[in-house]
C-alpha cells in the first residue's frame, strides 16, 4: 500500500461510566474518499465521529492524523471540521458572518476572509443569501451554511453527522448527489455518520458497519452487499431472507445445509465457513435472487420451495412479493414488473414456487463479533 491513511482510529474504546459506547474500534480513512460510518441508532457511530473531531476523548486508544498522534489535541486546534446534525448555525449571525466565523477566530486578514467566504458561498449556491439571518432560511439552506462554514476552513477531513436525516425525501436525493459533487470539487475526505444504509451505499466509497459499539466490517458498498461477514451486516445492508441452520453436513466438496424454512440445500464447500457446527449459523438469500412462479419450475439444481402468495408491494419498476412458507415463516422476493404481472393476476393464497441457485446462498455466522 502506497497510500497512507489520513485519519487512523486505533483501538479506540469509549466508556461512559459502566456503559461501553465503543469497544476497540480501528478504522482508517483514506485521502479523498467518502467514508461512511453506518449502524443502528445507539451503536456508537456519533461518539466515534465526536472523538475524531476532538469533542470527546477516547477512554483508550488513539487518533492519528497523517501519522501524528492528535488524541490530546483539543477540537479547536484540529484541522478537522464538522457539520452537526442540527447544523448548529449561529442564530445571531448572518449567513456570511457564520461562514466567516472560523476564519475570524484564526485571525485571518479581513480581505482574505471576504474572498474565502464569497468562494465558499458560491460553492454551496448561497451567494444571494449572504446577508440573510438563519431564521429566514429553510432547513436545506441552513445545512449549506453549515457546510460552507466548515469547508471554508479548508479542513483535512470533513465530518458530517447524519447530514441528510432532517431533510425531506426529495431534497435528500438531491443533496446526496450534491455532497458527492462537492467532495469531488474540494477533494478532502468526508466522514459521514448515518443510520440509513441506502444513503451510505449511494454516496460512500467505503463503509464501516458498527453494531453495539463494535466494528463489524469495513468494505466497499458492493463488498458489504456481496460478502457480508455475518447475519447482522447482511440484514442491515439491503433486504435479505435469513434462515436458521439446524445442521451442516460435509460431503466431498459439497455442504448440505438443513433448515426448517427451506429444507436441505446443497452448496459448494467454499460458501460455508469451516467446521460442522451449525450453532449460530444462518443461511441468507437476497430477495432479488429469488424467482417466483405459479407453476413448478423445471430446474437443473438449486432450491425450490413451495408456499402461498402473500402481499405484493408495488414500487414502480419492481415489486416486493411476500411468500408464506408452510412452516410459518415468510420469504420476500424482489421481482421486476414484467415477472410480477402474472402474480398480480393470481389471488392471494395461491400456490407459488420459489427458486434460487445454490451459488447465491450465503452461510454466515449470526453475529461475527
Amino acid at each position, binding site marked *: 500500500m502506497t497510500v497512507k491513511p489520513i485519519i487512523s482510529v486505533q483501538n479506540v474504546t469509549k466508556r461512559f461510566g459502566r456503559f461501553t459506547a465503543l469497544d476497540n474500534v480501528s478504522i482508517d480513512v483514506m485521502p479523498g474518499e467518502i467514508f461512511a460510518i453506518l449502524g443502528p441508532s445507539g451503536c456508537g457511530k456519533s461518539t466515534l465521529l465526536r472523538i475524531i473531531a*476532538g469533542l470527546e476523548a477516547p477512554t483508550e486508544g488513539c487518533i492519528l492524523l497523517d501519522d501524528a498522534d492528535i488524541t490530546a489535541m483539543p*477540537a*479547536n486546534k484540529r484541522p478537522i471540521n*464538522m457539520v452537526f446534525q442540527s447544523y448548529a448555525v449561529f442564530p445571531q449571525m448572518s449567513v456570511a458572518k457564520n461562514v466567516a466565523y*472560523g476564519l475570524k*477566530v484564526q485571525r485571518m486578514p479581513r480581505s482574505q476572509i471576504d474572498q474565502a467566504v464569497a468562494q465558499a458561498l458560491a460553492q454551496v449556491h448561497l451567494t444571494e443569501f449572504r446577508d440573510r439571518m438563519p431564521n429566514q432560511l429553510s432547513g436545506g439552506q441552513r445545512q449549506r451554511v453549515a457546510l460552507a462554514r466548515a469547508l471554508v*476552513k479548508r479542513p483535512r477531513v470533513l465530518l458530517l453527522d447524519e447530514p441528510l436525516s432532517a431533510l425531506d425525501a426529495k431534497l435528500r436525493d438531491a443533496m446526496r448527489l450534491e455532497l458527492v459533487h462537492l467532495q469531488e470539487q474540494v477533494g478532502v475526505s468526508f466522514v459521514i455518520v448515518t443510520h440509513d444504509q441506502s444513503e451510505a451505499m449511494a454516496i460512500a466509497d467505503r463503509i464501516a458497519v458498527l453494531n453495539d459499539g463494535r466494528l463489524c466490517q469495513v468494505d466497499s458498498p458492493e463488498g458489504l452487499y456481496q460478502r457480508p461477514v455475518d447475519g447482522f451486516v447482511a440484514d442491515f445492508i439491503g433486504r435479505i431472507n435469513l434462515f436458521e441452520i439446524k445442521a451442516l453436513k460435509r460431503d466431498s466438496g459439497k455442504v448440505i445445509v438443513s433448515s426448517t424454512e427451506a429444507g436441505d440445500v446443497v452448496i459448494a464447500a467454499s460458501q460455508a465457513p469451516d467446521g460442522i457446527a451449525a450453532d449460530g449459523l444462518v443461511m441468507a438469500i437476497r430477495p432479488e435472487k429469488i424467482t417466483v412462479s405459479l407453476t413448478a419450475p423445471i430446474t437443473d439444481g438449486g432450491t425450490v420451495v413451495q408456499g402461498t402468495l402473500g402481499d405484493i408491494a408495488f414500487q414502480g419498476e419492481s415489486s416486493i412479493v411476500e411468500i408464506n412458507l408452510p412452516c410459518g415463516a415468510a420469504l420476500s422476493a424482489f421481482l421486476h414488473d414484467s415477472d410480477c404481472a402474472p402474480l398480480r393476476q393470481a389471488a392471494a393464497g395461491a400456490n407459488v414456487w420459489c427458486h434460487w441457485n445454490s451459488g447465491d446462498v450465503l452461510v454466515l455466522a449470526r453475529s461475527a463479533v
Partner: protein
Amino acid sequence: MHKSREKPEPFHYHRKLSLQLFFIATIVFLYLPIIVLVIFSFNDSRRGGNIIWRGFTFDYYEKALNNAGLIEAFANSITIAVISTIFSVILGALTAVLLWRFRFSFKPLFEGMVSLPIVIPEICMGVSLAVFFGYFGLWAPPGTPWPFNLANIIIAHITFSFPFAAMVIRTRLATFNRETEEAAKDLGATEFEVFRDILLPHMKPGLIAGALLAFTLSLDDFVVTFFTSAPNAVTFPVKVYSMVRFSVTPEINAASTVLIILTVILTAFAMRFQSFRETSK
C-alpha cells in the same frame, strides 16, 4: 339573535359579552387607581385629604422638586437600584450558568438555597438582615459619605433580587443549542471566544429581562429597605411612607407620577429592544 346563541368557535370567545365585561373590569381595577393618582397630582388643593378637585396646577411638581428630602430619597433609590441591578445580573448570570452547565454534589440543595429568597416572606428577610447588620456592626456610622451610607440597603437588595435574575437567565439558557457551542469550538474558537460570540449573545435577552426585574424590585421595595435603612439613608418608598403618615398631599402624587413615567419609559425601552432583537434574528 338566534345566531349569537350558538356556541362560539374557539377563537371567537372574545366576542362574548360576559368575557368582554370581565376584561373591562380587570382593566378598570388595575389602572383606575393609578389614573386617579396622576390626575390628583395636578389638583390645586391646599390641604391634605386630596379627594376633592379644586382646579389644575403644576405647583406640586415644583414643590416636590424643591423638597430636598424627597429629591435626596429619589436619588438614593435610583443609585441603589442601579448598583444592585449591576451586581444582581452578574451574580444571577454566574449562578444560572453554574446551575445549567455543571453537575456537582448537593446541586439540588444549592439550587433550593439560591431560590429561597424568592419564597421567603419579605418581613422575615428584613428583620434577619437588620439583625445581621447589627450583630456584625455593619451599620454605616452617621456621617458616612454618600453613596457608602447606602451600602447596607444595596447588599440587602442584591440578596433578594439576584435569585430572580438567575431564574430568568436560566430559563433563557434552557433554549440554548449546545451544538452551536461545539460548532464554534470546532471552528477554532477558544473557550473565551465561545462565551463572547455564542453564549453571551444568546443570553442577552435574559440578561436584559433579569436586569429590568432586578431594577424594578429594588426601586419599589419597601419592607426590606425599611429594616435596613439608617436615618441618614432613606429611599423614595420609605420617604413617601413617612410623608403619608403626616398627610397625603398632591406633592406625593406628583413624585409618584414622575416615578411611574420613569418606569413606563424604561419598560417600553426594554421591550422595544427585545422585540427589535427578535425580528432581526
